[in-house]
Structure formats: structure tokens, C-alpha cells
């Protein structure tokens, strides 16, 4: 069986941030803090960005500024959609078994 690409939680949060608009590192960090109340450190954030960029799921946009904005690629959008569907299936099953739905 082919091993699926698995990314950590911060990577998913970054992809979700970029799904709405192009953002630079600090804006991604603020978005994650605002929406999930999780404060990502610079080391964790850029570790995840490195992996996502190497996987081709995000790309850096040219900028003269030190802050470089990132954009979600088509492959990234597809990957994120699949991940969301997978999480949705798991939460639906969990909710059903708990009698919540």
C-alpha cells in the first residue's frame, strides 16, 4: 500500500490560512493564533513552511520586502481538500458513535 503524505497540525493550519489569501509568515502566525488560539513559534512555523514548499503545496511570491508572501498551489489546494474530507469523515463517524447526530 502506498504511504500517504502526512503533515503535522501546524502544516494544515498554514494551508487553511493560505486557502483564503496569500500571506507572509507573520500574518499566517497571527491568523492561526486568532482562529485556533495556538501560538506557533517561528521555528515550528518555518519548519512546516519548508516542508510544504518542498512538497510543492505552497509557493513563495516574489517580493522586494523581507516579508515574503506565500500562495497555496493547485496541488496544495487538492491536498488540503482531501485532508478536510478525511477529517470530516472521521468527525462524522465519531459524532455518530457518540450519539451527537
Amino acid at each position, binding site marked *: 500500500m502506498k504511504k500517504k503524505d502526512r503533515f503535522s497540525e501546524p502544516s494544515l493550519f498554514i494551508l487553511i490560512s493560505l486557502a483564503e489569501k496569500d500571506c*507572509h*509568515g*507573520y500574518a499566517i*502566525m497571527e491568523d492561526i493564533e486568532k482562529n485556533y488560539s495556538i*501560538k506557533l*513559534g*517561528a*521555528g*515550528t*512555523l*518555518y*519548519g512546516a*513552511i*519548508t*516542508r510544504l514548499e*518542498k512538497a510543492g503545496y505552497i509557493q513563495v511570491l516574489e517580493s522586494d520586502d*523581507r*516579508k*515574503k508572501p506565500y500562495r497555496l498551489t493547485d496541488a496544495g489546494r487538492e491536498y488540503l481538500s482531501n485532508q478536510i474530507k478525511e477529517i470530516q469523515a472521521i468527525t462524522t463517524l465519531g459524532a455518530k458513535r457518540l450519539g451527537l447526530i
Partner: protein
Amino acid sequence: MKWFVYLYPKSWRQRYGDEIIDLLEQQDWTFFMTIDLLRGIIDAWKIELNEREVFGIRMSNLLWLVGLINILIILQYRSLQEVILMEQVALIIAMVSFFLAVSIFIVNLFKAGFRNALSIKTKLSKMAVGFMGLYGLTFIVFLVLAN
């Protein structure tokens, strides 16, 4: 905090260095940030060493091999019951220094090239020589204590 960025691999620093410095400048220093950065540095080196190859063998695997050889040497000396605590401490420092010297030399070999790695022009060569010196000193201490 900025100097932490210099602990990242050179290629990583060239790509993300400015961005991370910019981000660090916008935040107040916390203990959590330091720990997180140190984790990030280890992670970046892990990625770097996993991507580099020496004669078709991954650098990370080579470092594991060097580490394993060092552990075997330490275990061999540990089995001698007459070795007292100070000797063991000296030996462990010696072996760790040797491991670091060899690891840094290998990393430098691929970063700076064969000729530069054999000179002491780069920071990494100086560090490797320093650790080798520490290895020599602590190993002599070990031998003196053991006798």
C-alpha cells in the same frame, strides 16, 4: 535572538533567514520561543542531512553509523569494572568530542569542499579542530586516570 538563525544550515538561512529574522524582530523574547527555535534548528538540520548524500549514502545514515560506533566504544569501556566515575566522564566527553569533530568535518567537507575542509579557514573547520583538541585532552585525562 537573531544569532540563533546562524545555527540553521547555510542553504536554509539563505532561503528563510531574512524572513525569520523579520518575524523574530516583531515578537518579544520568551523562553518558549528559544526552545521552539532550537527545535526548528534541529529539524532544519534533519531535513538538510536527509537530502545530502555521500557516495549514494544519506548523510543522516552516515552520522547514525558514526554515533553507533561511538556508543559501541563507550560500552566496551563501560564493561571494565575497574573504570571509576571520573574516567567514565572523561571518556564520554572524549567520545562526544570525537563524534562532534568527525560530524562537523563531514558536514564541512560537503559545505566548503575538500580543500577548504582540510584547512582551518572556515568556522566549521575551526570547530572541528577545537573538538578534536578537546578529544585529545580528555582522552589523555582518561588514560592518566585509568593508569
